[in-house]
């Protein structure tokens, strides 16, 4: 009961839209940590959350349109994984349908919250700026309470015993299929990111990074960040960005 209540509270913090909520509760790696903490396995939670997170590396919400729901993929993905005792790859595959489901919740949130500006207009008409501010602070979080916190509480309260039964019912071939999916999906995160960053003239840097890592086996990313920063500083000093402009013209 207490764990389910904490899950509900976590879902509220996870769903509210603000920088502190985004970075400390929504990001799957942090959501995984909190879920793990609630169920006494914070390290496991962080590992699962981080792996789910990597599939969403290039995740972006432009104008409120989501690709898949980052909020629940991390939160409920980790929950299902810990309660079902599944492997990390399988957990990542499970996070996909949860994320797609959560996406409908997000659409519902954005739609219901669209009623708030109607009331705000009425306050504006009266010049009541404090009323607008109060609504801005309370409107969205109230919708989150009903759409995200209460459902997650119910899932955590009633659902957790069924998860284990459900997982056990899955045949071996389907499990190995899900495991392969879990390993494949990380490529989506990379691809989304690549779509953002890719420019033809920057291709050599991508090949260089891949080549060095693939052949040397060194995959500590801090190393690549340091080398990358040095490369960028040197090349921009040499006028790398300016040459691009001429080419573009």
């Amino acid at each position: 009961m207490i764990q389910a209540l904490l899950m509900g509270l976590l879902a509220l913090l996870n769903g509210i839209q603000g920088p502190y909520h985004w970075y400390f509760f929504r990001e799957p790696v942090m959501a995984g940590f909190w879920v793990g903490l609630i169920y006494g396995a914070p390290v496991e939670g962080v590992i699962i959350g981080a792996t789910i997170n990597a599939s969403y590396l290039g995740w972006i919400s432009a104008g409120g349109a989501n690709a898949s729901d980052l909020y629940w993929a991390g939160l409920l993905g980790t929950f299902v994984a810990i309660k079902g005792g599944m492997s990390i790859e399988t957990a990542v595959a499970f996070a996909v349908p949860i994320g797609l489901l959560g996406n409908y919740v997000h659409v519902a949130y954005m739609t219901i919250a669209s009623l708030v500006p109607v009331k705000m207009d009425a306050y504006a008409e009266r010049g009541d700026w404090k009323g607008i501010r109060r609504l801005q602070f309370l409107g969205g979080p109230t919708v989150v309470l009903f759409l995200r916190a209460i459902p997650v509480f119910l899932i955590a309260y009633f659902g957790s015993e069924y998860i284990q039964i459900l997982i056990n019912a899955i045949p071996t071939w389907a499990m190995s299929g899900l495991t392969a999916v879990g390993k494949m999906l990380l490529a989506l995160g990379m691809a989304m990111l690549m779509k953002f960053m890719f420019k033809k003239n920057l291709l050599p840097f991508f090949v260089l990074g891949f080549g060095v890592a693939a052949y040397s086996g060194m995959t500590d990313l801090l190393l690549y960040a340091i080398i990358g920063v040095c490369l960028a500083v040197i090349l921009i000093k040499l006028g790398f960005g300016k040459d691009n402009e001429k080419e573009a013209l």
Partner: protein
Amino acid sequence: MSQATRSLTKRDVQKAAFFWHMTSHLTYNYQRLQAGAMATIMGPILEKLYPNDKEKMKEGLQRHMLYFNTEPRWGAVLPGMAVALEEGLAKDDSNELDASIITELKTALMGPLAGIGDTVWAGLIKPIILSITLGWAMEGYVWGAWAYGIGVTILDFVVTYAMFMRGYKLGMDSVDRFLEGGFIKTVTTFLGIVGLFCLGAMIVKYVSVGAVYKLTLSTGVISLGTLADKIVPKALPLLVTLLAFWLLSKGKKVTFVLLVLFVVGFVGGALGILG
């Protein structure tokens, strides 16, 4: 009323910047997106500029309840500018300034700034930090998760605050000068180099799918995965990533690509080819 009482102090602007940082998305919605946040930060500003003037307050709030949406961090330059313009409008006793210029400027610039901001923040800065800290977190270090949370929060605040204050200073100068300085372009090139270099290595680190199919011949067992790795190590992760990238740049939706990968992975895994 004398002009002095219609001036904003630095503290007023700082307070507005902080409110923007806190509330920009709190009641985000399809109908007006960030308009509620804009009106929220403008309340105290208008109160200061037009004390006890209900009519001006009403006009101002209605002006800022209009549809508004930009990237909240780099785009904070816009609410900053809007605050400066409101101050200019209040001080303009000759009535040469038209209030509609504020709305026009916001509407003209929110789109381009959202594009730049999303690319730089969601496409470059956040993923680079995330990819480094996720590496730690995946190895089971809890502080890796916290390093991400704390690091990005500080960065978010610093960028938002700096951009808001810069926007206020730019005021009537218009945002062109800010963009023409080449600052954003240099930032984008810089992060593009670092990002793509790291991305290449990230594929090797994170995408672990491989071929597990084994051919049994009279001379022995050949593992396809080992064979492929001899030619180009980690070729399969690269191919899968490039496939997804190709589909995305063809304009396919992320959900579609997700389902393609799901089906290919599931079938491949169930048949014992991928793993």
